[in-house]
């Protein structure tokens, strides 16, 4: 035994740049502490301590990121750490900052307990919905118990940590693990709604089964690319694509399967089937978290994979992704027109936006990279604020999400209607909102990359999509309110802050976008 051991070569321990990965370690470490809170704190103290811990974590991770980003003089080159599995470069720092900010907004919505007494989450996830009222709600006393399943906080932190690893991962195995770390908590969070338990559970089942299906595709793609390149490092795959003695079948099959998994997470185009159902069924704060942060993480991963591993074979696959982008924009814009539920409408709008984002991602130039990241930042905040507003419009059954119930909302609550109008205009991409700037930079990058036909289709799709946003605005301002219509709750501090933050950033990025564009364009990926 000892002789055998002495013959074994010592594995060199990977070098860790703790400064660079500090935000990751803080978020994931705090998630573990948060689990311990769940286990050992009495129920009465949990909510307060979890909120404090989560907010402190986000702040500490943000400070860690800012310290690293400002102190490092060699930042232009970026840094590979953990034996090359994690890359901390300019785009990653931008995406991490975006994720932390959006995570803050989502956590504020999750933590709010004033709009819905006790919070948007069920007191105990294992209770059964009432059999009599069936679909609509569980028994009254359960629905109004003023507690919530505080496990949602550690789950959020784990998901956020997974997203941060996902955008920074420099090899496909790390990316797969990160994909699961971000997905598994989200599956659970979908099923925690306080009202309409059955819809919520159904959303969780659908998201879980389809998500597991998609990650199996992603993984098979990883395996085939491993067979193709003999390694799963993005840089090795990139250099293998230039060699002539490799199997093209493995490359294209691997790439196809891999990208299907990624596009599914980003809810692009034909892989969007889960999006409307899950967005509608999940608790609205979780929907906001998914819509904003998952989109950032998924597109961060798509950008990284396309730029890192497949840039040199782009001639072969760009046609397919053209088709996917077109399909996504058309599906999102056209099906969005037919929706009657405001959450589903925003879900289809997110499918259309995913198509626009994909245009930026397949431009494969520097403007495309910075434009896509700016778009992600802008879109994320608009969406969080929009879902924040959705949580406010309620009737006795919970949120009133049917569009007919929103008729004449401007007469009941001019402020909420005005904010929502502004956010819808930003989603439609009107000037003076961040949505306009985002679309502009992405389309400019696409024109630069000689993708003019795609841009024309995108402009038509945005015009069609603008119609269903305007329909809601007309409904809110020019219809008579229904007699038994919903009331608009006065938001508590947390929701107010989240909506204000989202709306303010939407405005600032629309009026004065240059600083954010500069940050987004400050550097390129390293591999």
């Amino acid at each position: 035994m000892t002789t055998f051991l002495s013959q074994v070569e010592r594995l060199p321990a990977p070098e860790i740049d703790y400064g660079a990965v500090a935000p990751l370690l803080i978020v994931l470490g705090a998630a573990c502490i948060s689990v311990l809170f769940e286990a050992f704190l009495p129920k009465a103290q949990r909510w307060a301590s979890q909120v404090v811990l989560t907010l402190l974590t986000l702040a500490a991770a943000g400070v860690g990121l800012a310290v690293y980003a400002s102190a490092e003089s060699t930042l232009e080159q970026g840094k590979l750490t953990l034996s090359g599995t994690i890359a901390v470069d300019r785009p990653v720092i931008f995406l991490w900052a975006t994720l932390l900010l959006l995570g803050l907004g989502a956590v504020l919505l999750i933590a709010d307990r004033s709009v819905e007494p006790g919070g948007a989450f069920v007191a105990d996830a294992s209770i059964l919905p009432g059999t009599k009222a069936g679909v609509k709600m569980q028994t009254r006393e359960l629905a109004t118990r003023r507690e919530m399943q505080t496990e949602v906080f550690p789950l959020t932190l784990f998901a956020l940590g997974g997203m941060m690893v996902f955008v920074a991962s420099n090899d496909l195995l790390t990316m797969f693990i990160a994909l699961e770390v971000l997905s598994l908590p989200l599956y659970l969070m979908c099923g925690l709604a306080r009202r309409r338990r059955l819809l919520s559970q159904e959303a969780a089942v659908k998201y879980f089964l389809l998500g597991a299906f998609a990650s199996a595709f992603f993984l098979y793609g990883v395996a085939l690319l491993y067979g193709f390149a003999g390694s799963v490092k993005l840089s090795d795959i990139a250099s293998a694509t230039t060699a002539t003695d490799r199997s093209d079948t493995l490359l294209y099959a691997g790439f196809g399967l891999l990208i299907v998994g990624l596009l599914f997470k980003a809810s692009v185009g034909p892989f969007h089937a889960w999006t409307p159902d899950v967005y509608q069924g999940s608790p609205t704060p979780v929907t906001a978290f998914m819509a904003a942060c998952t989109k950032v993480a998924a597109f961060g991963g798509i950008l990284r994979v396309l730029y890192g591993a497949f840039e040199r074979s782009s001639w072969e696959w760009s046609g397919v992704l053209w088709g996917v982008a077109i399909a996504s924009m058309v599906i999102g814009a056209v099906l969005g027109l037919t929706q009657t539920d405001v959450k589903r409408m925003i879900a289809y709008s997110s499918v259309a936006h995913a198509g626009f984002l994909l245009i930026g991602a397949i431009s494969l130039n520097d403007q495309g990279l910075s434009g896509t990241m700016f778009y992600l930042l802008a879109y994320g905040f608009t969406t969080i604020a929009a879902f924040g507003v959705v949580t406010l419009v309620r009737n006795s059954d919970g949120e009133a999400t049917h569009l007919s119930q929103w008729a004449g909302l401007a007469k009941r609550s001019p402020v909420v209607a005005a904010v929502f109008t502004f956010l819808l205009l930003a989603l439609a991409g009107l000037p003076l909102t961040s949505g306009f700037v985002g679309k502009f930079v992405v389309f400019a990058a696409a024109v630069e990359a000689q993708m003019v036909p795609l841009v024309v289709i995108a402009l038509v799709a945005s015009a069609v999509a603008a119609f269903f946003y305007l329909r809601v605005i007309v409904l809110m301002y020019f219809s008579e309110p229904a007699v038994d219509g919903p009331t608009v709750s006065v938001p508590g501090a947390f929701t107010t802050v989240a909506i204000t933050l989202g709306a303010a950033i939407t405005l600032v990025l629309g009026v004065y976008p240059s600083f954010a564009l500069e940050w987004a364009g400050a550097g390129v990926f390293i591999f």
Partner: protein
Amino acid sequence: MTPTYYLLLSALLFSLGAVGVLVRRNAIVVFMCVELMLNAVNLTLVTFARINGGLDGQVMAFFVMVVAAAEVVVGLTIIMAIFKTRRSASVDDSNLLKY
């Protein structure tokens, strides 16, 4: 013993799993089909590790097993929760969310 046969076998298993996900009704069976897909991937990984003469693929197979185990925990929890409500694990019954 040509390694290619193992690749073909794993592709076959993966396709069987994928078809199973699409045609089976019971959520548990659908989930088992996903697990079959993951195990087909494991077979691919170790075969490629053998072909390439490296250990990476075998190590990756361990990671996949760990992830699959974690997925089982989460998945069965979710399926149990909806089963307790509906008294059915059929994915066709879950049809409240549409349009």
